[in-house]
């Protein structure tokens, strides 16, 4: 045998081209983890007070809304309103921060997308991961506050991961849709800025579901976040409050939210898979 022939001959494999998850699952998760960790570090290394700042935003929003709704509008008849409001705001802030960062995430990482072999899905997902780290950290002071407020720990607190899972699911789906669409339609950023306000007032955060007028309740059914807030009220703050199904008036009405939730997830997968291979060219 000739010496020039190399020792091992590798078989030819088809090259599939760019995709949402291309390059193998191990590489995908390694990249996701590393990018999330470095993103997280970046958020806190550059600033003097680090972690403190991630608390400031929800804290300020909470204080303002608390004053408005207890001192000016005098919402009454809601048990433990301040902690309910706090929990809702921390959840909503997580949703909003992740989705609004995700909008521009793919475009912001143009260099990587256009010049390396990079699974596109990692980019918005890293934003979600960073959001999850932040949310978990923010929940620590929230629970301290809940205890200080005089609410005794209950076994349903153990169900918190289910609520977080539901929240993370819809957040991820929305993040994927927005990041993929923004590459082609720059209006998405503006639209989503407005939607943030709409969703804040259009979710049962500042008020519980049952305090809303009939027409508003019907609108709230189409918000996939609604069941997340109503259920967390029962499980975390007030066991006497109705569960997510009862609060909205039965399974039929509850299933509307579930359907919207599922539709968003399906749309997300469909859009991202469709757009991912062409992102580098459309940038």
């Amino acid at each position, binding site marked *: 045998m000739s010496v020039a022939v190399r020792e091992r001959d590798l*078989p030819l494999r088809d090259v599939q081209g*760019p995709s949402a998850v291309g*390059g193998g699952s191990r590489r995908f998760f390694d*990249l996701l983890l590393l990018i999330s960790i*470095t993103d997280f570090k970046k958020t806190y290394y550059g600033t003097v007070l680090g972690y403190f700042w991630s608390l400031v935003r929800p804290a300020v929003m909470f204080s303002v809304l608390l004053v408005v709704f207890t001192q000016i509008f005098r919402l009454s008849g809601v048990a433990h309103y301040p902690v309910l409001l706090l929990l809702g705001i921390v959840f909503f802030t997580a949703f909003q921060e992740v989705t609004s960062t995700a909008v521009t995430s793919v475009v912001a990482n143009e260099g990587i997308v256009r010049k390396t*072999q990079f699974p596109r899905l990692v980019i918005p997902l890293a934003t979600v991961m960073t959001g999850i780290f932040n949310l978990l950290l923010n929940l620590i002071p929230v629970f301290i506050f809940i205890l200080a407020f005089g609410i005794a720990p209950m076994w349903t607190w153990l169900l918190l991961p289910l609520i977080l899972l539901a929240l993370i699911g819809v957040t991820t789906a929305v993040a994927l849709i927005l990041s993929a669409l923004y590459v082609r339609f720059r209006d998405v950023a503006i639209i989503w800025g407005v939607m943030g306000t709409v969703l804040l007032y259009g979710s049962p955060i500042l008020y519980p579901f049952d305090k809303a007028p009939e027409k508003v309740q019907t609108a709230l059914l189409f918000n996939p976040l609604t069941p997340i807030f109503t259920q967390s009220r029962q499980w975390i703050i007030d066991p006497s409050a109705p569960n997510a199904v009862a609060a909205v008036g039965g399974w039929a009405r509850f299933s509307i939210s579930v359907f919207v939730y599922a539709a968003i997830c399906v749309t997300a997968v469909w859009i991202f898979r469709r757009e991912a291979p062409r992102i*580098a060219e459309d940038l």
Partner: protein
Amino acid sequence: MAVDVSTAAAPAPSPGVAGRSLAIDVRGLEKSFRLPGQKIDSLKERVLHPTISRDFSQLRALDGISFEVNQGEFFGIVGRNGSGKSTLLKVLASIYRADAGLVRMAGRLAPFIELGVGFNMELTARENVQLNGVMMGLTRKEAARRLDAVLDFAELNEFVDLKLKNYSSGMLVRLGFSVMIQADADILLIDEVLAVGDASFQQKCADVFHDLRGSGKTLVLVTHDMNAVDAYCHRAILLDHGQIVHEGNPQEVGRHYLRLNFERGETSSAAQASAGGPAVRLVDIWLEDAAGERTNSVELDDDIRLRAIVEADRDTPAPTFAFLLSNADGVHVFGTATQLKREAGEPDLLAAGSRAKVSARILNPLGSGRYFVDFGVNREHSQTDNVIWVSKAADFVIYGTQAQTGLIALENEFEAVIEDG
């Protein structure tokens, strides 16, 4: 007969030209882009012009590209700007998706479209090297293990925990190149990254590429610098308008490439001809070694042999031919000129339609590094009456093993002895 049976029974790995297996197999690759300017960027435009998306004008960047690269081969993809070579690289690197065609590869691929792409300036070298390794397809452990090798090669060990934003541009280039070399992929895809760094770094890169040849690694080099292809590649293809116009050894491809470039030059000069444009064309320019073979490198201490052929389109009286050498920093290091050699009674004239061969042998005291050759023709033996002047008409590398300080290598005697006393 037994031989026939065995080859038929084991079709993979597919045999390449020299009996080796293929590393890359590309068949009928096609890729079109929408022309910019017609891109719909907002919902409003889409709503107002709902039909526009159906009649984009297309730019065919790749138009039926097929080629094969053997394992262990160094392969060049050459072409002028806009010939489709970068698109081809991006399709190979899974950055773009081809419209049609098939790409198959053997082993792990590491693409380098740009040195240090994906480096995050806010992170330290340690974190970046790890991230980059994972991006190249290593596991996190492997990536952590190769950190030392990367830093050693880049000579940046003491700066491992410094954020990249505090690195100098030279340090970044070194780190980027080092990360590339240490990627340990089976196939390296490299786009124009060789033309960076100072001369000593270039020399180091050259050494690395020489080492990589014969290590079994496959390398695809995409460039418009023929010299890099000449210096490193076994085989090359020349792209023009998204098609392969020539495939063969680097020297042949280089000649086709040169012709392609000069043809374009000709059309533009033909347009100026009526306005008194150039009367002389540079047909070819090259370097020779002592044996008269074309080369692109000169050993330290060896003579520099420059050759050029010019053709006159119109009568050019009393021509003067000049070579000017500049180093990589653009410093003019040496210039020389000569007049037409003729027998007694012959006119001092480069007549229309005639060719002249220009040869210069220059003793070489130059230090190692890359040098560029400008070529010009003046008429009427004047210093200023330029007929043509071609900047960077050719370039070459002077290489040597000894480290040396300064622009030139002068012969010297030098000793230090203990004084008796």
